[in-house]
């Protein structure tokens, strides 16, 4: 039985993964320019500052684009039993963009413009990833 692929925990991304395991979203924010930074970086990609802090952003966003994943390519066969599922580009209300699965509705019904909220799903013991659920 194949497992879902696990991230490689590094000194850089450990705060994100520790929080995710508790089902909390933590992302970086630049202390100089104030912009939220996703995915985790060594410096702010907008102003270059290395002064980044980990913060809890607003957990809501809007779907920018969506696709329904129907085959495994370059990933673990463990995903097969959940297919088809929707993966979206979500533009978060705090001004950062993140990919994630959209659960809690039929994948074909997910549309750009749909409002969503972050949730978490355990993919292994002690490892959880953000997913999205439509807001009512």
């Amino acid at each position, binding site marked *: 039985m194949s497992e*879902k*692929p*696990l*991230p*490689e925990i*590094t000194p850089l*991304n450990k705060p994100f993964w520790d929080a995710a395991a508790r089902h909390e979203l933590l992302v970086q924010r630049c202390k100089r320019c104030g*912009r*939220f930074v996703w*995915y985790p970086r060594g410096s702010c*990609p*907008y102003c270059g500052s290395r002064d980044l802090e980990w913060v809890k952003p607003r957990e809501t966003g809007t779907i*920018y*684009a*969506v*696709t*329904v*994943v*129907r*085959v*495994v*390519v*370059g*990933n*673990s066969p463990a*995903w097969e039993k*959940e297919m088809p*599922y929707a*993966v*979206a*580009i979500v*533009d978060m209300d705090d*001004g*950062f*963009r*993140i*990919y*994630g*699965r959209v659960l809690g509705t039929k994948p*074909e019904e997910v*549309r*750009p413009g749909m409002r969503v909220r972050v949730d978490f799903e355990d*993919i292994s013991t002690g*490892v959880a*990833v*953000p997913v999205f659920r439509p807001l009512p």
Partner: protein
Amino acid sequence: MDVAIVGLGETPYSRARADKGEIVMSAEQYAAWATSLALEEAGLSLRDMDGQGLAVAGTEWPHSEIWSAEVVQNLGFRPKLLLRGDFGGNNAVELAVQAAAAIRSGLVDYVLVLGADSPMTPFGTQTARSWRYDIDYMRPFGLMGFVTLAGLMMNRHMSAYGTKVEHFGKIAVTQREHARLNPGAYVKAPLTMEDYLKSRVLSDPLRLLDSVMFVNGGIAFLMTGREKASRASKQPVYLRGYGLAHNYVEGDPAMPDVTTTGVKAAARDALQMAGATPADLDFLQLYDDFTGAVLMQIEDIGFCAKGDGGKFLDRTDISYKGELPVNTGGGLLSNGQPGMAAGLVHVAEAVRQLRGEASGRQVSGAKLGLVSGLGGLAYGNNLANSGALVLGVM
């Protein structure tokens, strides 16, 4: 100093199916084959390349970080300048630009640009490494790399602009017609719009026939300055202009428009350097890892406004006989993608068109064409590496 392509070598392509009588070779053999074809065409010997340049594209399954040193030993080259491409689908454009800069600076007289890969017969254990953002924030999140991102870009184009799947289908069908006229293309089966619409959906709206498939193969082209060009070739193909863009963003850098490629900037710079406009181009060889990339680039180069690509395709014949010939050899979609050497396929087709050697699919009176490159999946954006070459003959 003007720089020209004066020698071209392109091997046959293969899926390495021994049971079907196909060629089964490793990347090293394809590198040797393409190199000898290109040097032979230019009338140069291996020793003529001593003290010159070699610019080599990486491979799909690199087995060592220090790798180009192995390639030069395999080939017996003693280059002064050694360049290695890690730009994916932009390898050909990027290495051609680096080669031209080296020739113009006087560092070397010749640079051989080489791409050879055998993704169907990989070397040893396949340990497919990727970018940290793919390993950490894409694969565990349920994304299937290129297939998912291509689906997302095409979905955005459809939802924002009303583009239809038939628009993507027209690209696949036209390129297949070209492949059927190109003796060197791998995929020759006829393809109708009906076949396209029936093909398996991988990641909505991306279908199997929107996507490339791997082949083994090698391509090499030799570049030199004007002075040596006329001696090495009856018909030098000149580099009239070029442009490169990395980590290009359209709009808000945190939430960019994923339907715009960096080819917008690269083609603008390349055309400006060439003193040309899009209307002056006799053909386009556009990097086509998926059909949507072709449609987006037609917009980005300036043939129509962003979002109007579908309508543009409704009224425009993009075959070799049409108003805007695109991917006249079949492109990667029908030629097959020789791994990390893929971008060189487009340079090879441009050179043949400009020399008037594209029999059966020759663009009448072709004097100026554009080749693009796109490589590396960016996070939350289009592709990361973009480039354009304007090539021409007088």
